[in-house]
């Protein structure tokens, strides 16, 4: 896990921007989910992402994003993958993406 409690973690601007994008896409997915279960599953991906970052995250802005959930899933996944470049543990990122895929599968049915 990238975040170690008690250790100062430095979040640089590009990292923060990627994080903000990932959060925004996840928030949009949660808002547009077809069922309450799927919405809650997306929400938990978002919470997990915040937990990894030690809750040091910029705000999300789900306004004005596309309503196509497939596109949102793709951009969210790519934003999450991008996080690896900023020192987030790759395995953790993979686990978050797996959670996201599960949530999407729940949403589709």
């Amino acid at each position, binding site marked *: 896990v990238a975040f170690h409690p008690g250790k100062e973690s430095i979040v640089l601007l590009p990292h923060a921007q990627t994080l903000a994008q990932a959060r925004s896409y996840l928030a949009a997915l949660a808002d547009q989910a077809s069922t309450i279960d799927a919405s*809650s599953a997306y929400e938990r991906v978002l*919470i997990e992402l915040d937990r990894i970052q030690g809750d040091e995250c910029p705000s999300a802005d789900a306004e004005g994003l596309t309503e196509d959930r497939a596109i949102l899933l793709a951009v969210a996944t790519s934003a999450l993958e991008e996080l690896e470049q900023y020192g987030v543990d790759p395995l953790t990122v993979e686990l978050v993406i797996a959670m996201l895929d599960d949530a999407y599968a729940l949403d589709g049915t």
Partner: protein
Amino acid sequence: MYGETGAAIRAEFAALLRQHRIQQRLVGTTTKEREELGGLIRTYRQTVLVWLGQAMRAASPLAFSNMPPAQPNPFRAVGSSGSHLSATELARAIDLAKHQSSASPASTHALATPNANPMVDRWRLAARAAALAEHDTSEQVSAQMTAPQAQALVGDVAALTQALVVLDQRYKNTPGWEPLAQCARLGWASLAAALDVNLGQPDYAIDHLGWRPKTKVITGPVRPGILGVLQAQHNLVIRMKSVPNATNLRLVVDSQRLVSAHLAPYAARIDERLAGRWTERAETYSVIQKELREIGGLLGKGGLAVSEGANAVARLKALPRDTIVEPRVVSGFQLLFNRLDHRIADVIEDGVQQGAFFKRVTLPRLVGGGGQLVRPVRERFVPVTPAKDLEVVKTVRERLRPKNEPPMSTPGPTRVDLHSALIHRPTRGGAVDVPNV
């Protein structure tokens, strides 16, 4: 709870008032033995008097006269109303009786040891309940009391004082008996106080005030079916006593959203209206969840609460679709939901107010060059605003916090019973409750 201890005192006194021919009940071969029992009864009476005095002190700041305010006359000096509160007079008379008596309050040993004589044992039980009731009319409790509730308390004290006066007359032949000081005055003061209370509308919701045993986590094996969900929900309410951090709060909110939404269909078979309320609750929690995304904070714990919330969701999802949920269980859920909503509303409001939760900052936005030579980074600052401007606080105040429903309160059977026992007299001939002589 005052409802329990007060009812116990009244029940014992009602039973004592129905007993006549005291000397035959104080079974003892010698005068000395009867004197000993009489002394014991007086210590028990002293304990009851101590509580009566304390209850009057608790009620006195709130016991206003029922006198309508007089028309203000500008030509008359203010503050010269000579009206004497009957409640104050009763408190004074009780204090006098307490101080003039030579008996000391019963010791813990005397309160706990059962007496072989059934009548003395009733006195003991009454004194024990009075000692316990000191918990329920303490200063902390009287701080929550309203004026009508204080009136109800004054009414109870007046009835019990009257009972003491009646019993004092009846016990006067006991060897070594010491009558209450200014017994007649005490009786009239209690009558005046009782009459004064009934001019207003006493609120018997006071029965719900006072000390309660601590609610505990239900441990042990998981209860089968819907009871397991209820168990987890109950434990969640208790675990929420510790303040959760922002992440855990979001997880708890998420669990409540799911629990409400999934329980609504079960409730719909019993009560459509309740199901509607639960669906609405799920929507409220969805909104709160959305707004909590913008809230962060590392202070607090709440791991146990989250796990109980997850338990509730998992057990609820595992229920078979055709489960019948009893109305009792449904109302149990409603009670727990109300408590939890109150608690979550408190956590969010206090957290924002005291700085445990903070609002996330919007990032500075990089804007592509527009041809100008110098392009500063456009930055958005979040203005420091009072807590009430925050969306989530507004939602919590307007939608989440349950409306206060005053608990239904009736005088209860013991008050009626005591009042009728005050004027009890033995029937002629075959009195059932008099021992055969």
